[in-house]
């Protein structure tokens, strides 16, 4: 089981949790398992074709998955997958 870090905007979709443990041997499988368990997450981060939206950054440990093997990046038990959408808040 890998740890998925959930950003504040998606926490409601996973019952308020900040991290969720899911299985899978690649980043894509981990996110698939997450979306199967919490369909509301899929509605936010996946396109109609089931692909990750371009505005969703995914990190495996501290590295941008786009620079690894994207959804095929291997993920083990000790790894953390972080979903990271940009945040805008600052002034108001």
């Amino acid at each position: 089981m890998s740890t998925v870090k959930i950003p504040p905007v998606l926490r409601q979709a996973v019952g308020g949790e900040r991290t969720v443990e899911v299985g899978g041997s690649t980043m894509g499988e981990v996110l698939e398992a997450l979306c199967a368990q919490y369909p509301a997450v899929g509605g936010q981060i996946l396109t109609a074709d089931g692909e990750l939206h371009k505005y969703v950054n995914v990190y495996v440990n501290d590295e941008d998955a786009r620079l690894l093997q994207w959804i095929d990046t291997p993920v083990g038990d000790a790894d953390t997958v972080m979903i990271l959408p940009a945040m805008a808040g600052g002034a108001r």
Partner: protein
Amino acid sequence: MSPSYQDLLAAAREAIPEVEPSDVAPRVEAGDGPLIIDVRETGEWDQGHLPGSVHIPRGFLESRIGTVAPDHDRELLISCASGQRSLLAAVTLRDMGFTNVSNLAGGFARWKQNNYPVQVPRILTPAQRSRYSRHILIPEVGEEGQLKLLDSKALLIGAGGLGSPAAYYLAAAGVGTIGLVDDDVVDESNLQRQIIHTTDRVGVNKGESAEEAIRALNPGVQVNVHPFRVNRDNVLDLLSEYDVVVDGADNFPTRYLLADAALMTNTPLVHASILRFEGHASVFQPYDGPCYRCLFPEPPPPDLAPSCGEAGVLGVLCGVMGNIQATEAIKVLLGIGDTLSGRLLIYDALGMTFTELKVRRDPDCPSCGPNADLQLRDYEAWCAGVGSHDHAGATA
């Protein structure tokens, strides 16, 4: 019999080699001379000194030499006004284990008589020395760094959650000119976090309110109030007047506008954003490190990117993140330390964790990549439209 002053000098001359100005001047000019330590008093140093020399008043020699010269085998040349105080200082350094110490014969007076170059420092006023004394004591800042800050100009986008603490601390630090861009007025609901404003200034423009607070804290700071929104027509003129821009905006169009304008004007951008208990921070150094679009090529749709006004924010989180921005801005202005360039710092106040992610330059970045066609666009329309045409490759 106890030794007299003359006896001490005579003994020191036996122990410490003396160097004539004519021996060392060519090396100083070529930039490969010894590390010159000037042990005179501050008033004397301020009148002029050897170029590149370091000032440690005799009374602080033992306590400060370690930071200035950590290597005990480094070649040191000690100077004072006439070569006597420096001779005794050299003995002290030799006793402290410095192996390569010599004395400047005839001191600064003989150096000057021979018409070798003299550096006259721009100096802080006594009042500035007192106000910034805790900065001056830090070797990485010092009087030189403080003068640099006083000459610096920082532009803050937003005088709100992030801009309040950032502006306050940058002003306290003596950043000489602070620009505040905000078209909004202080609202009672701002005061839970926007600490530069006050209850009796509700209804006042945020820039003007912040100016009043800054004037009370540090009247030496020039505040430029820009009571409008930053937009395509004014952003380039605005940024080109400043040395660093601190992004505390509350919306994506402004953030992407700033990111592109920072590249176009070659202005370092200190980024932070906040929501609820979580903060992001980074530094974008144009064409040297990644830019904002290398990190976030496209903004998320509005439902994935609520504002603090919609989703809330812990007041004190603004203080932490705004002060991280102030810290990074000061480092950028002074050119010291390792900034957050190439890293995204994520602060989770609820778990009290700091996480760092690597951010790399994207070779295909539509803003800073080699094939980018960088021009200011209609960011409002672009941000609003992105969610509906996700794979359209944006509108680079």
